Protein backbone atom coordinates (compact mmCIF):
# COMPACT_ATOMS: atom_id res chain seq x y z
CA UNK A 1 0.00 0.00 0.00
CA UNK A 2 1.52 3.31 -0.97
CA UNK A 3 -1.20 5.65 0.12
CA UNK A 4 -2.88 6.39 3.40
CA UNK A 5 -5.95 4.79 2.05
CA UNK A 6 -9.43 6.00 2.43
CA UNK A 7 -10.51 2.39 2.75
CA UNK A 8 -8.37 1.99 5.85
CA UNK A 9 -9.78 5.13 7.35
CA UNK A 10 -13.26 3.90 6.63
CA UNK A 11 -12.45 0.54 8.18
CA UNK A 12 -11.54 2.31 11.37
CA UNK A 13 -14.79 4.15 11.16
CA UNK A 14 -16.72 0.94 10.75
CA UNK A 15 -15.26 -0.29 13.98
CA UNK A 16 -16.15 3.02 15.49
CA UNK A 17 -19.68 2.63 14.27
CA UNK A 18 -20.05 -0.53 16.29
CA UNK A 19 -19.01 1.16 19.51
CA UNK A 20 -15.54 1.80 20.75
CA UNK A 21 -12.27 1.53 18.89
CA UNK A 22 -9.67 0.49 21.39
CA UNK A 23 -6.66 1.07 19.27
CA UNK A 24 -5.95 1.90 15.69
CA UNK A 25 -2.34 2.84 16.33
CA UNK A 26 0.21 2.39 13.60
CA UNK A 27 -0.71 0.23 10.68
CA UNK A 28 0.54 2.56 8.00
CA UNK A 29 3.75 1.86 6.10
CA UNK A 30 6.41 4.46 6.64
CA UNK A 31 6.64 4.90 2.88
CA UNK A 32 3.10 6.22 2.83
CA UNK A 33 3.88 9.03 5.18
CA UNK A 34 5.02 11.64 2.70
CA UNK A 35 2.08 13.25 0.98
CA UNK A 36 3.83 13.43 -2.37
CA UNK A 37 0.60 13.88 -4.28
CA UNK A 38 0.22 17.39 -2.92
CA UNK A 39 -2.75 16.65 -0.70
CA UNK A 40 -2.92 18.71 2.43
CA UNK A 41 -2.06 17.12 5.75
CA UNK A 42 -1.14 18.14 9.27
CA UNK A 43 -0.18 16.53 12.56
CA UNK A 44 -1.55 16.52 16.08
CA UNK A 45 0.15 15.95 19.40
CA UNK A 46 -1.51 16.09 22.79
CA UNK A 47 -1.21 15.92 26.55
CA UNK A 48 2.51 16.44 26.96
CA UNK A 49 2.03 17.14 30.71
CA UNK A 50 5.45 18.70 31.17
CA UNK A 51 6.01 18.67 34.94
CA UNK A 52 4.47 15.24 35.52
CA UNK A 53 7.04 13.00 37.14
CA UNK A 54 5.93 9.59 38.32
CA UNK A 55 5.11 6.10 37.18
CA UNK A 56 4.93 5.17 34.39
CA UNK A 57 6.97 8.07 32.96
CA UNK A 58 9.84 9.68 34.84
CA UNK A 59 11.00 11.54 31.72
CA UNK A 60 8.08 13.38 30.20
CA UNK A 61 10.25 15.94 28.36
CA UNK A 62 12.12 12.94 26.90
CA UNK A 63 9.00 11.36 25.41
CA UNK A 64 7.79 14.72 24.06
CA UNK A 65 11.17 15.09 22.44
CA UNK A 66 10.83 11.60 20.96
CA UNK A 67 7.39 12.50 19.61
CA UNK A 68 8.78 15.61 17.94
CA UNK A 69 11.56 13.52 16.41
CA UNK A 70 8.99 11.02 15.20
CA UNK A 71 7.01 13.85 13.61
CA UNK A 72 9.92 14.50 11.32
CA UNK A 73 9.52 10.95 9.98
CA UNK A 74 5.79 11.01 9.37
CA UNK A 75 4.79 14.61 8.77
CA UNK A 76 5.59 14.78 5.08
CA UNK A 77 5.73 18.28 3.65
CA UNK A 78 3.30 19.81 6.12
CA UNK A 79 4.39 22.51 8.55
CA UNK A 80 1.16 22.56 10.53
CA UNK A 81 1.08 21.12 14.04
CA UNK A 82 -1.89 21.13 16.41
CA UNK A 83 -1.50 20.55 20.16
CA UNK A 84 -4.76 19.63 21.89
CA UNK A 85 -3.88 20.76 25.39
CA UNK A 86 -2.37 19.78 28.71
CA UNK A 87 0.90 21.16 27.45
CA UNK A 88 1.95 21.41 31.11
CA UNK A 89 1.03 19.48 34.23
CA UNK A 90 0.67 22.41 36.65
CA UNK A 91 0.66 25.60 34.53
CA UNK A 92 4.10 26.59 35.84
CA UNK A 93 6.15 29.03 33.72
CA UNK A 94 9.13 26.64 33.69
CA UNK A 95 6.88 23.86 32.36
CA UNK A 96 5.60 26.15 29.60
CA UNK A 97 9.23 27.04 28.81
CA UNK A 98 10.29 23.41 28.46
CA UNK A 99 7.32 22.51 26.27
CA UNK A 100 7.79 25.57 24.10
CA UNK A 101 11.45 24.81 23.64
CA UNK A 102 10.98 21.14 22.73
CA UNK A 103 8.03 21.75 20.39
CA UNK A 104 9.98 24.63 18.85
CA UNK A 105 12.65 22.21 17.69
CA UNK A 106 10.12 20.78 15.22
CA UNK A 107 10.33 24.02 13.26
CA UNK A 108 6.61 23.65 12.64
CA UNK A 109 3.83 26.19 12.83
CA UNK A 110 2.20 25.07 16.11
CA UNK A 111 -1.32 25.94 17.23
CA UNK A 112 -2.52 25.16 20.75
CA UNK A 113 -5.69 24.92 22.79
CA UNK A 114 -5.68 24.76 26.59
CA UNK A 115 -6.18 21.67 28.72
CA UNK A 116 -7.42 21.99 32.29
CA UNK A 117 -3.82 21.57 33.49
CA UNK A 118 -2.77 24.69 31.56
CA UNK A 119 -5.18 27.14 33.18
CA UNK A 120 -4.60 26.46 36.89
CA UNK A 121 -3.20 29.97 37.52
CA UNK A 122 -4.67 33.40 36.73
CA UNK A 123 -7.61 31.90 34.83
CA UNK A 124 -5.21 30.74 32.17
CA UNK A 125 -3.89 34.19 31.26
CA UNK A 126 -0.27 33.05 31.15
CA UNK A 127 -1.12 30.19 28.81
CA UNK A 128 -3.21 32.34 26.49
CA UNK A 129 -0.54 35.05 26.29
CA UNK A 130 2.00 32.51 25.27
CA UNK A 131 0.23 29.75 23.36
CA UNK A 132 -3.02 31.16 21.95
CA UNK A 133 -2.06 34.62 20.84
CA UNK A 134 -4.89 34.55 18.31
CA UNK A 135 -7.47 34.05 21.06
CA UNK A 136 -7.29 35.85 24.41
CA UNK A 137 -9.59 33.24 25.96
CA UNK A 138 -8.07 30.23 24.28
CA UNK A 139 -10.36 29.92 21.26
CA UNK A 140 -9.74 31.16 17.71
CA UNK A 141 -9.86 30.06 14.08
CA UNK A 142 -7.68 30.20 11.00
CA UNK A 143 -7.57 28.89 7.44
CA UNK A 144 -4.83 26.80 5.96
CA UNK A 145 -4.66 24.53 2.92
CA UNK A 146 -8.30 25.23 2.17
CA UNK A 147 -9.33 23.85 5.55
CA UNK A 148 -10.97 25.98 8.26
CA UNK A 149 -9.43 25.23 11.63
CA UNK A 150 -11.25 26.06 14.86
CA UNK A 151 -9.53 25.79 18.23
CA UNK A 152 -11.93 25.67 21.18
CA UNK A 153 -11.52 25.99 24.95
CA UNK A 154 -13.76 23.59 26.89
CA UNK A 155 -11.74 23.36 30.10
CA UNK A 156 -12.82 26.38 32.17
CA UNK A 157 -15.74 27.31 34.42
CA UNK A 158 -16.71 23.66 34.78
CA UNK A 159 -19.77 22.95 36.90
CA UNK A 160 -19.96 20.51 39.78
CA UNK A 161 -20.97 17.09 38.48
CA UNK A 162 -20.63 18.31 34.90
CA UNK A 163 -18.39 17.67 31.92
CA UNK A 164 -16.31 19.97 29.73
CA UNK A 165 -17.90 23.31 28.92
CA UNK A 166 -17.73 25.78 26.03
CA UNK A 167 -20.09 28.37 27.49
CA UNK A 168 -22.56 30.76 25.88
CA UNK A 169 -20.00 33.37 24.85
CA UNK A 170 -17.80 30.91 22.98
CA UNK A 171 -20.80 29.23 21.35
CA UNK A 172 -21.98 32.61 20.06
CA UNK A 173 -18.50 33.26 18.69
CA UNK A 174 -18.48 29.86 16.98
CA UNK A 175 -21.83 30.50 15.34
CA UNK A 176 -20.55 33.84 14.00
CA UNK A 177 -17.29 32.26 12.87
CA UNK A 178 -19.11 29.68 10.77
CA UNK A 179 -21.84 31.94 9.40
CA UNK A 180 -21.61 32.46 5.67
CA UNK A 181 -18.90 29.87 5.16
CA UNK A 182 -19.32 27.48 2.21
CA UNK A 183 -20.62 24.10 3.37
CA UNK A 184 -18.08 22.45 1.09
CA UNK A 185 -15.10 23.75 3.06
CA UNK A 186 -13.56 21.04 5.26
CA UNK A 187 -13.69 21.96 8.93
CA UNK A 188 -11.27 20.78 11.60
CA UNK A 189 -12.25 21.49 15.19
CA UNK A 190 -9.68 20.89 17.89
CA UNK A 191 -10.31 21.06 21.63
CA UNK A 192 -8.91 19.34 24.69
CA UNK A 193 -11.83 17.43 26.22
CA UNK A 194 -13.73 15.20 23.78
CA UNK A 195 -16.71 16.91 22.17
CA UNK A 196 -18.62 13.64 22.26
CA UNK A 197 -19.40 11.78 25.45
CA UNK A 198 -16.80 9.05 25.77
CA UNK A 199 -17.50 8.27 29.43
CA UNK A 200 -19.54 10.65 31.56
CA UNK A 201 -18.60 8.90 34.81
CA UNK A 202 -15.06 10.17 34.35
CA UNK A 203 -16.09 13.53 32.94
CA UNK A 204 -15.01 12.57 29.42
CA UNK A 205 -17.36 14.68 27.38
CA UNK A 206 -18.56 18.27 26.92
CA UNK A 207 -21.90 19.43 28.31
CA UNK A 208 -22.77 21.87 25.55
CA UNK A 209 -21.05 20.16 22.60
CA UNK A 210 -24.42 19.36 21.02
CA UNK A 211 -25.06 23.06 20.52
CA UNK A 212 -21.70 23.49 18.80
CA UNK A 213 -22.42 20.53 16.55
CA UNK A 214 -25.68 22.07 15.34
CA UNK A 215 -23.61 24.89 13.81
CA UNK A 216 -21.37 22.33 12.11
CA UNK A 217 -24.11 20.08 10.79
CA UNK A 218 -24.43 21.68 7.36
CA UNK A 219 -20.75 21.16 6.49
CA UNK A 220 -19.78 18.21 4.32
CA UNK A 221 -16.57 17.33 6.14
CA UNK A 222 -16.05 17.94 9.82
CA UNK A 223 -13.19 16.42 11.79
CA UNK A 224 -13.12 16.88 15.55
CA UNK A 225 -9.77 16.26 17.24
CA UNK A 226 -9.44 15.95 20.99
CA UNK A 227 -6.99 14.88 23.67
CA UNK A 228 -7.56 14.54 27.43
CA UNK A 229 -8.24 10.80 27.53
CA UNK A 230 -4.71 9.73 26.51
CA UNK A 231 -5.83 7.02 24.11
CA UNK A 232 -7.16 6.66 20.61
CA UNK A 233 -10.90 6.56 20.13
CA UNK A 234 -13.02 7.29 17.11
CA UNK A 235 -16.63 7.79 16.31
CA UNK A 236 -18.46 8.96 13.22
CA UNK A 237 -21.80 10.72 13.22
CA UNK A 238 -23.03 11.66 9.77
CA UNK A 239 -20.38 13.93 8.27
CA UNK A 240 -18.61 14.43 11.59
CA UNK A 241 -15.63 12.26 12.52
CA UNK A 242 -14.52 12.43 16.15
CA UNK A 243 -11.06 11.36 17.11
CA UNK A 244 -9.00 11.45 20.30
CA UNK A 245 -5.22 11.23 20.32
CA UNK A 246 -2.63 9.49 22.41
CA UNK A 247 -0.63 11.45 24.96
CA UNK A 248 3.09 12.02 24.66
CA UNK A 249 3.38 11.56 28.45
CA UNK A 250 1.39 8.68 29.93
CA UNK A 251 -1.51 6.41 28.97
CA UNK A 252 -4.86 6.42 30.77
CA UNK A 253 -7.13 3.40 31.16
CA UNK A 254 -9.98 2.59 28.81
CA UNK A 255 -13.34 3.74 30.19
CA UNK A 256 -14.53 1.67 33.10
CA UNK A 257 -11.54 -0.66 33.10
CA UNK A 258 -10.02 0.96 36.21
CA UNK A 259 -11.44 2.55 39.34
CA UNK A 260 -10.39 6.01 38.13
CA UNK A 261 -8.95 7.76 35.07
CA UNK A 262 -5.50 8.37 36.57
CA UNK A 263 -2.28 7.40 34.78
CA UNK A 264 -1.72 3.72 34.05
CA UNK A 265 1.21 3.11 36.36
CA UNK A 266 1.96 -0.53 35.79
CA UNK A 267 3.10 -0.43 32.22
CA UNK A 268 5.51 -3.27 31.44
CA UNK A 269 9.10 -2.17 30.93
CA UNK A 270 9.71 -1.17 27.34
CA UNK A 271 5.99 -0.91 26.58
CA UNK A 272 5.42 2.73 27.47
CA UNK A 273 6.30 4.09 24.06
CA UNK A 274 3.81 1.82 22.36
CA UNK A 275 1.10 3.65 24.33
CA UNK A 276 2.27 7.17 23.54
CA UNK A 277 2.17 8.73 20.12
CA UNK A 278 1.27 11.28 17.54
CA UNK A 279 -1.52 11.70 15.02
CA UNK A 280 -1.35 12.65 11.38
CA UNK A 281 -4.40 13.83 9.48
CA UNK A 282 -4.59 13.63 5.73
CA UNK A 283 -7.20 15.29 3.59
CA UNK A 284 -8.52 12.88 0.99
CA UNK A 285 -9.98 14.65 -2.01
CA UNK A 286 -11.71 17.19 0.20
CA UNK A 287 -14.78 15.04 0.60
CA UNK A 288 -16.02 13.23 3.68
CA UNK A 289 -14.00 12.77 6.83
CA UNK A 290 -10.25 13.20 6.70
CA UNK A 291 -8.01 10.16 7.07
CA UNK A 292 -6.48 9.99 10.52
CA UNK A 293 -3.39 7.94 11.29
CA UNK A 294 -2.07 7.38 14.79
CA UNK A 295 1.54 6.43 15.18
CA UNK A 296 2.91 5.19 18.49
CA UNK A 297 6.35 6.36 19.53
CA UNK A 298 7.48 2.75 19.28
CA UNK A 299 6.03 -0.48 17.93
Amino acid at each position, binding site marked *: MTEVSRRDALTCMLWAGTGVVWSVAGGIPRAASAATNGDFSFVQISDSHIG*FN*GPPNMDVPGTLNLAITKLKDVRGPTSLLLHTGDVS*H*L*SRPAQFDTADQIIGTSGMDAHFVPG*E*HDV*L*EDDGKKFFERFTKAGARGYYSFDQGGVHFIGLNNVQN*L*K*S*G*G*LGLLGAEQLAWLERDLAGRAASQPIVVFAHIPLWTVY*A*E*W*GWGTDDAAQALTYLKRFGSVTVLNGHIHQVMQKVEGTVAFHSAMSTAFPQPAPGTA*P*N*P*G*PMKNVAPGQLNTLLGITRVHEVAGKGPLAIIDTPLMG
Partner: protein
Amino acid sequence: MAQGMTRRASLLLGLGAMAPGLGRAEEAAVAVVIEEFAFTPAEIKITRGTKVMWTNKDDEPHTVSDATPKKAFKSQALDKGETFSLVFKEAGTFAYFCSLHPHMMGTVIVT
Protein backbone atom coordinates in the same frame (compact mmCIF):
# COMPACT_ATOMS: atom_id res chain seq x y z
CA MET B 1 2.56 28.37 48.41
CA ALA B 2 1.71 28.85 52.08
CA GLN B 3 1.54 32.56 51.46
CA GLY B 4 -0.84 32.07 48.59
CA MET B 5 -3.12 30.00 50.76
CA THR B 6 -3.09 32.60 53.48
CA ARG B 7 -3.95 35.32 51.04
CA ARG B 8 -6.78 33.30 49.56
CA ALA B 9 -8.02 32.32 52.97
CA SER B 10 -8.06 35.86 54.25
CA LEU B 11 -10.37 36.73 51.40
CA LEU B 12 -12.73 34.13 52.74
CA LEU B 13 -12.62 35.67 56.18
CA GLY B 14 -14.47 38.68 54.84
CA LEU B 15 -17.35 36.48 53.80
CA GLY B 16 -17.99 35.48 57.36
CA ALA B 17 -19.09 31.96 56.55
CA MET B 18 -15.69 30.38 56.81
CA ALA B 19 -12.31 31.27 58.16
CA PRO B 20 -8.89 30.02 57.29
CA GLY B 21 -7.21 27.26 59.20
CA LEU B 22 -4.30 28.81 60.98
CA GLY B 23 -2.32 25.61 60.75
CA ARG B 24 -1.65 25.48 64.49
CA ALA B 25 -0.62 22.02 65.54
CA GLU B 26 -2.97 22.01 68.50
CA GLU B 27 -5.99 22.74 66.37
CA ALA B 28 -7.78 19.49 65.62
CA ALA B 29 -8.85 19.05 62.01
CA VAL B 30 -11.25 16.68 60.39
CA ALA B 31 -9.36 15.02 57.57
CA VAL B 32 -10.63 14.43 54.07
CA VAL B 33 -8.36 12.48 51.77
CA ILE B 34 -8.31 13.08 48.03
CA GLU B 35 -7.38 9.79 46.48
CA GLU B 36 -8.28 7.76 43.41
CA PHE B 37 -10.21 10.75 42.02
CA ALA B 38 -12.56 10.89 45.02
CA PHE B 39 -13.05 12.81 48.27
CA THR B 40 -13.07 10.35 51.19
CA PRO B 41 -15.26 10.54 53.08
CA ALA B 42 -17.44 12.25 50.51
CA GLU B 43 -19.72 13.60 53.23
CA ILE B 44 -18.64 14.80 56.63
CA LYS B 45 -20.69 16.14 59.53
CA ILE B 46 -19.01 18.64 61.81
CA THR B 47 -19.94 21.26 64.35
CA ARG B 48 -19.41 24.97 63.89
CA GLY B 49 -15.84 26.12 64.27
CA THR B 50 -14.33 22.85 63.13
CA LYS B 51 -11.41 22.88 60.75
CA VAL B 52 -11.45 20.55 57.76
CA MET B 53 -8.21 19.64 56.06
CA TRP B 54 -8.01 18.09 52.61
CA THR B 55 -4.87 16.21 51.56
CA ASN B 56 -4.25 15.21 47.96
CA LYS B 57 -2.69 11.77 47.64
CA ASP B 58 -3.12 11.44 43.87
CA ASP B 59 -0.41 12.13 41.31
CA GLU B 60 -3.06 14.22 39.60
CA PRO B 61 -3.69 17.77 40.86
CA HIS B 62 -7.11 18.49 42.36
CA THR B 63 -8.94 21.46 43.83
CA VAL B 64 -11.50 21.96 46.59
CA SER B 65 -14.03 24.41 45.15
CA ASP B 66 -17.42 25.71 46.24
CA ALA B 67 -20.00 23.96 44.04
CA THR B 68 -22.51 26.79 44.30
CA PRO B 69 -22.59 29.90 42.11
CA LYS B 70 -21.41 31.88 45.14
CA LYS B 71 -17.92 30.42 44.64
CA ALA B 72 -17.16 31.32 48.23
CA PHE B 73 -14.03 29.20 48.38
CA LYS B 74 -11.57 27.57 46.03
CA SER B 75 -8.20 26.06 46.81
CA GLN B 76 -5.35 26.39 44.43
CA ALA B 77 -4.48 23.27 42.48
CA LEU B 78 -3.14 20.84 45.07
CA ASP B 79 -0.27 18.76 43.85
CA LYS B 80 0.46 15.39 45.42
CA GLY B 81 0.93 15.76 49.17
CA GLU B 82 -0.38 19.31 49.39
CA THR B 83 -3.16 20.29 51.76
CA PHE B 84 -5.91 22.87 52.00
CA SER B 85 -7.93 23.71 55.08
CA LEU B 86 -10.96 25.72 56.03
CA VAL B 87 -12.73 26.45 59.31
CA PHE B 88 -16.50 26.34 58.95
CA LYS B 89 -18.00 28.95 61.28
CA GLU B 90 -21.61 28.84 60.25
CA ALA B 91 -24.15 26.06 60.15
CA GLY B 92 -25.28 24.79 56.79
CA THR B 93 -24.62 22.31 54.00
CA PHE B 94 -21.63 23.14 51.86
CA ALA B 95 -21.28 21.30 48.56
CA TYR B 96 -17.89 21.33 46.91
CA PHE B 97 -16.17 19.70 43.92
CA CYS B 98 -12.87 19.48 42.10
CA SER B 99 -12.93 22.16 39.41
CA LEU B 100 -10.53 20.08 37.29
CA HIS B 101 -12.51 16.84 37.55
CA PRO B 102 -16.08 17.99 38.17
CA HIS B 103 -17.35 14.46 38.72
CA MET B 104 -15.48 14.55 42.04
CA MET B 105 -17.95 15.92 44.60
CA GLY B 106 -18.15 16.23 48.37
CA THR B 107 -20.29 17.76 51.11
CA VAL B 108 -19.60 19.32 54.48
CA ILE B 109 -22.59 19.46 56.82
CA VAL B 110 -22.12 21.92 59.66
CA THR B 111 -24.45 21.92 62.67
